[in-house]
């Protein structure tokens, strides 16, 4: 700032001099994204969580490599009658069952109380003592659990991420249309959201999943077979749309009243340009946060639907169906249910932690919340 006294001596030369003297680290204008990156960069917990998630995705993506080169089997291959060498000793993959002690998981000899009749007992975890075969044991059909876990993870992640992507795209479109046009269009879209709030999420998922699971979807020229992963993906994305769409619509509605929209209108921008190049960039950070958190949510929902039989259909593995399969053998072979559950918890936890970090960075005043 030039002082009053020196105002008269201020010439073009002094101006250039002053410009040269300006310190090298001037304050540059920063975009909100670079500010957010600056905040996120020091959040090591969030990065660790992101790393964990990427590691899980990579492991599941490499399922077929593990299956062919380490375990030497496929996700649905049956090994009931085979034997496998554990530490050099042959052991059958699935042994005959009998009375099993509920507490120890061993065969009962005389004491009948606290024992339970089990039809067959698969091999337990071999922990690489069998040359990479049956690392986490087998299920009662003699299928390698570690292989199924990776393939199941792949399916769970495909359904989780795919449904989130579809859900977020649809929700953003609806929110932009409702928020921009207002009036009766807004009325219809919000009533549509409200209507789906009336159904418990899981029940609506079950209703759609079980209605479609038996013979698939054959309408409007679209044919989806009953065992397809598209069914759980579409069902879950459909069910979650209101939960993302409603808060986004609120944001769009308040942005709609801002001056920059008025300016865009004055410049002669049409609805399409206002929606996608004025409004959308302003809700982009919320959309990103929602996307991360809704993936976590949808992976759990997929697991729940598959567990109940209304999601991914057997024999296709997914973390939910694996838990459902393992439930019956929990006493003798707890790893069958433990392993997929731990996989879900780690995946969902990593996404939740990263999503929180992302929210702290992009939206420090926490406007975005997923409710349910």
């Amino acid at each position, binding site marked *: 700032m030039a002082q009053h006294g020196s105002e008269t001596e201020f010439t073009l030369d002094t101006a250039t001099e002053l410009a040269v003297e300006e310190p090298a680290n001037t304050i540059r204008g920063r975009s909100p994204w670079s500010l957010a990156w600056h905040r996120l960069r020091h959040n090591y917990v969030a990065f660790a969580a992101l790393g964990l998630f990427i590691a899980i995705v990579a492991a599941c993506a490499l399922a077929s490599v593990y299956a062919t080169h380490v375990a030497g089997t496929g996700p649905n291959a049956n090994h009931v009658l085979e034997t496998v060498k554990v530490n050099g000793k042959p052991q059958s993959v699935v042994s005959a069952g009998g009375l099993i002690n509920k507490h120890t998981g061993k065969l009962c000899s005389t004491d009948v109380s606290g024992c339970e009749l089990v039809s067959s007992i698969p091999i337990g975890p071999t922990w690489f003592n069998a040359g990479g075969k049956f690392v986490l044991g087998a299920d009662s059909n003699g299928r390698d659990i570690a292989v199924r876990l990776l393939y199941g993870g792949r399916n769970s992640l495909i359904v989780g991420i795919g449904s989130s992507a579809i859900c977020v795209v649809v929700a953003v479109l609806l929110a932009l249309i409702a928020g921009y046009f207002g009036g009766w269009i807004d009325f219809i879209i919000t009533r549509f959201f409200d209507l789906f709030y009336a159904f418990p999420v899981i029940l609506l998922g079950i209703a759609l999943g079980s209605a479609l699971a038996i013979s698939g979807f054959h309408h409007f020229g679209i044919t989806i077979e009953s065992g397809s992963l598209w069914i759980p993906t579409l069902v879950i994305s459909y069910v979650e749309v209101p939960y993302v769409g409603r808060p986004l619509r609120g944001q769009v509605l308040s942005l709609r009243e801002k001056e920059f929209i008025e300016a865009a209108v004055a410049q002669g921008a049409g609805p399409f340009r206002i929606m996608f190049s004025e409004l959308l960039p302003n809700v982009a950070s919320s959309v990103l946060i929602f996307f991360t958190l809704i993936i976590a949510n949808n992976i759990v929902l997929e697991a729940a639907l598959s567990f109940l039989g209304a999601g991914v259909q057997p024999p296709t593995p997914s973390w939910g169906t694996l838990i459902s399969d393992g439930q019956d053998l929990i006493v003798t072979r707890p790893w069958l249910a433990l392993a997929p559950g731990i996989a*879900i918890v780690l995946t969902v936890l990593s996404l939740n932690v990263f999503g929180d970090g992302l929210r702290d960075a992009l939206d420090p005043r926490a406007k975005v919340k997923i409710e349910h």
Partner: protein
Amino acid sequence: MVAFLVRRLFGAVLVCVAVTFIVFLIFIVVPGGGANGTAERIAGKNATPQNVINIEKQWGFDKPFYVQYWRLVDKMFTNKLVSYTSQQKVLTQIWEGMPATFSLSIGAGIIFLFFGILVGVISAVTAGRLSDRVITVLALIGISMPVFWLGIIARYYLAEGGLTTFFPDGEYVSLSSNPTAWFSHLVLPWLVLAVLFIGFYGRVLRGNILDTINEDYVRTARAKGLSPRRILIKHVLRTSLIPVVTLFGLDFAQVVGGGAILTETVFDLHGVGEYAAQSINNFDLPPIIGVTMYGAFFIVIFSVIVDLFYAYLDPRIRPT
């Protein structure tokens, strides 16, 4: 207030009608006719061709869609919806499952509201310290666990028949026949169902309290020299609890309306949810139709009650 009541009730009736339409769309229109069509699905997996033809006639699948819709609604409200697999009336079965579902939901609701608030307050009061961090981590793990998996593991490690014998193993004992057994059989399911919500409410409340603490009126209260406890209870908690109470109303309705389905299934509680879950395994559609519709009705009615309760508590919400 009367006008508000009438309008709210009218809206609720409209939503209920819309719900019946959606159920009709999901179960009757989407599967369509022909081989493996709606009639065959409703008949269940062990149906004979004659059964299918009978159902087609009864449900009016050879008639226009409004007749089909009307028959469905008629069946729903006159207890004529029958499971063709078990030959039992759906409404009667749902009615019989109610005590277990309500016992589970109400107990879990009390637990998660109480502990959610407790956890949120402790975490906000000690924000940044060790206890806050431990609670934050535990809450995150809590909301990341699938409830059915937690249930299976808890049942295996804690309930009789598994590794230890702290709790009896699953099943529902009615309150009237044996109150102590009712309680002991429900403790584990209550806790399992509550874990997710405790984590969630704790996080929401912590955020709300930390926002409210910076408000001017809290500073004024502090400047007046009020004790921290009084400020927390009288000034901060009052405001920050409002969103939590709103959430509680919605969540509780969701849990009763079918959200408890997983917990009921895992612990074998013979509630409405388990009835629906078993029907899925048998490809038995009428019970799922019934549970979906009644679950949604319950939520709609419950949300009206919650709204009226709010309007009574807070005059600002009362519109004219």
